[in-house]
């Protein structure tokens, strides 16, 4: 029966304009960017879970989608029209937000709290309610199961009851989209299940589209047919089976987990690792890739296809190579968006370069921020590490003019000089990915041969 509902929803989904959509949305509080070019679309009737570690920008994304924050670049579209063009009231009549927690300074009753959900509909000067308003409030309280609590003081309720009141308040807005920010964060397991059952009932019976930020991967797998894994940008957006991939989770959350179906259950479960067993551990990476700005895309795909485990980094969050590496690499060394490579991150790169057998240097644009990476590469090469330098195809006649500064060098020749030194230290220069891959396989074979001897 579950499958049936889902297919029906799937049919609805395909034909229409997305109900809520983000297009290349960039946002930051000051100069630092928190979200970089996020795009996603939610169709009418969907129930979507938003996953991501602490500080990954889930709450910020929800605030952008509800119009509380304005994106710095890009657009948020509601029913195909930009959020800014809707009036604030009109948005509030369509999108309701359930906050994680609500601090209420006054001793308001539950009924009064739910009545506040009617705010976007009330236009009379002294704010009196119409009969439609009263009906909507009664209905919202009945659906959320808080009718019995109507005269109680909100502050004196238990956590689970409070969460239901907040849902009732949102329902009084008669929204088409419900955005929930970690609705189960402060609840015990009983209330977590109760709250999510309620949300699912709203989605199925009352046709409310749901986007909920969640911490609990297991509950997410159980209740949400579509999951978005988020870390300052969308890492994965698919069904639970694909998103809850142990390798992906390990890279995003930085912890080993096991994913499987428990006996007697119909859903995926995510479990902490069993420490004694080493079988969960991935292959040791043998190649380090320095890339960025899309320069490593083809190379990383080629390595992944050839089943050569590799480390990528350091890469800035938001860089397209970073997002790709999260999917393909065994390990990703991560730096904050747009930040120069910090010394702590450089240490990680150094450690990785000591453990791998080969470094592949992609034709990355060189700036003040990543010059240090090239220096690390040079030290490693001088220490004896094999280095393959992937260069863009150079037209004939230019080949000899190595003294000239490369066009991708924004450091007034410092970067070009480091590349020269790398060549002198014995780096192999190649001009195509296939050549690089052949070369890498050969180097690695030699390495294995040596280590076997």
């Amino acid at each position, binding site marked *: 029966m579950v499958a049936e509902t889902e297919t029906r929803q799937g049919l609805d989904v395909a034909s229409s304009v997305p109900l809520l959509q983000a297009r290349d949305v960039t946002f930051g509080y000051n100069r630092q960017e928190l979200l970089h070019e996020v795009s996603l679309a939610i169709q009418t009737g969907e129930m979507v879970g938003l996953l991501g570690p602490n500080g990954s920008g889930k709450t910020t994304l929800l605030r952008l989608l509800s*119009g509380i924050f304005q994106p710095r670049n890009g657009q948020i579209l509601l029913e195909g029209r930009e959020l800014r063009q809707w009036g604030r009231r009109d948005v509030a009549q369509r999108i309701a937000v359930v906050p994680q927690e*609500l601090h209420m300074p*006054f001793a308001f009753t539950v009924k009064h709290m739910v009545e*506040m959900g009617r*705010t976007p509909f009330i236009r009379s*000067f002294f704010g009196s309610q119409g009969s439609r308003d009263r009906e909507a409030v009664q209905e919202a309280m009945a659906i959320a199961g808080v009718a019995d609590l109507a005269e109680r003081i909100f502050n004196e309720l238990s956590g689970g009851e409070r969460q239901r009141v907040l849902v009732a308040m949102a329902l009084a*807005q008669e929204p088409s989209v419900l955005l929930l920010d970690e609705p189960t964060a402060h609840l015990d397991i009983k209330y977590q299940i109760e709250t999510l059952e309620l949300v699912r009932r709203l989605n199925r019976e009352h046709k409310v589209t749901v986007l909920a930020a969640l911490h609990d991967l297991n509950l997410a797998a159980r209740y949400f047919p579509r999951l978005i894994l988020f870390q300052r940008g969308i890492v994965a957006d698919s069904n639970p089976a694909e998103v809850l991939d142990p390798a992906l989770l390990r890279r995003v959350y930085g912890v080993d987990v096991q994913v499987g179906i428990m006996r007697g259950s119909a859903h995926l479960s995510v479990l902490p690792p069993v420490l004694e067993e080493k079988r969960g551990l991935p292959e040791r990476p043998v190649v380090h890739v320095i890339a960025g700005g899309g320069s490593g895309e083809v190379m990383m795909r080629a390595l992944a296809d050839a089943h050569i485990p590799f480390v990528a980094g350091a890469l800035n969050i938001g860089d397209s190579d970073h997002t790709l590496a999260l999917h393909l690499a065994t390990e990703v060394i991560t730096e904050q968006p747009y930040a120069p490579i910090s010394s702590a991150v450089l240490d990680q790169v150094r450690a990785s370069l000591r453990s791998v057998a080969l470094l592949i240097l992609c034709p990355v644009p060189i700036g003040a921020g990543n010059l240090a990476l090239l220096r690390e590469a040079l030290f490693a090469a001088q220490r004896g590490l094999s280095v393959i330098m992937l260069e863009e195809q150079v037209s004939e006649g230019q080949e000899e003019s190595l003294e000239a500064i490369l066009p991708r060098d924004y450091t007034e020749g410092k970067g070009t000089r480091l590349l020269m030194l790398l060549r002198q230290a014995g780096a192999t220069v190649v001009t195509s990915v296939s050549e690089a891959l052949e070369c890498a396989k050969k180097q690695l074979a030699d390495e294995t041969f040596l280590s076997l001897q």
Partner: protein
Amino acid sequence: MKTETPFSRSLLEQSQRRRYIPLPIILCVLSISLLLALLLSVSVGSTAIPLATIVKVVLNGTRLFHFVPSWDSSIEVIIWNVRMPVVVGSALVGAALAVAGALFQGILRNPLADPFLIGTSSGAALGATLSFILPVAALGTLFPATAVLAFVGAILTVLFVYALARVQGQTPVVTLLLAGVVVNSVLVALQTLLLSLFPRADFPFQALFNWLSGEIAVTSWYPVLIAAVLVLLGLVLALSLTRVLDALALGEESATALGLNVEAWKFGIVVVASLMTAAAVSISGLIGFVGLVTPHVMRLLLGPEHRSLLPASALGGAIFLILADLLSRTVIAPAVLPVGIFTALVGAPFFLFLLRRSKREYRW
């Protein structure tokens, strides 16, 4: 749950339900009390006037009734031109300060907020001080310079504080409070500086002291009428804001999600509250405590919904100040003490009594 008998269930609910006095009842009681306080306050004074006489004189004043005067004509002068302006003025000031206090407490989500918090008091005090120093005693013949300058000082200061606290189109509450405190101390320093620089032999220090401690110095109807227009306008606007005030209690983010333009409403509420405060200050000086405590007392009796809180606070504040003014005129008659003394001396113990009597923890 199912096993509970209906009886035990209803008992449980009763104990968990906070029971407030219904709004119509409290409004009736307060209105009647206000009327009685008005009459009492007009009747008591250097010459006691019987209540019946007051009623008849006032009803005659409406020109709908024609009671045959059984009283001295000077009584009519005392009622109409001496006592009524003061008593009506007190009622207006009390109502204005109490409502402004409720507005500030609501918007700042802070139980310690009062109408003077974000600069009104120091601005008005500086204006008043200037009026004592400047050579003009009155603007035209109708308005005392003190009233006008205090009003202008209060409004300008609030606007200045608000402008200071505004960062990138937002006015965070904390910044607003801090800017208010800082500007307050700067203006107090300026006021002290002025007083030190102009040590005129004939400087009316006593008059300034009285003004600062709060005195309802009304000698004609005109300032009272102007204040009445402003206060009533403020009241109507405030009553239209009750729903917004309730929603703002959810926090600015949730209020935005409910479709409110939070920054615009916040500014509107500050303007209404400041207008009422400035109108009050212009005829009364700085009267403390009414604005802080009246809304709390009403919350204890009625609950925190602004729809009932605001009208009840207006009536309660009016009654409170009429009675305080009555005390200030009678305790060491014929001398008149500043009202501010009695609002604190009587109001504080009463508030503490209510606070301790309510059995639950007071969550305002």
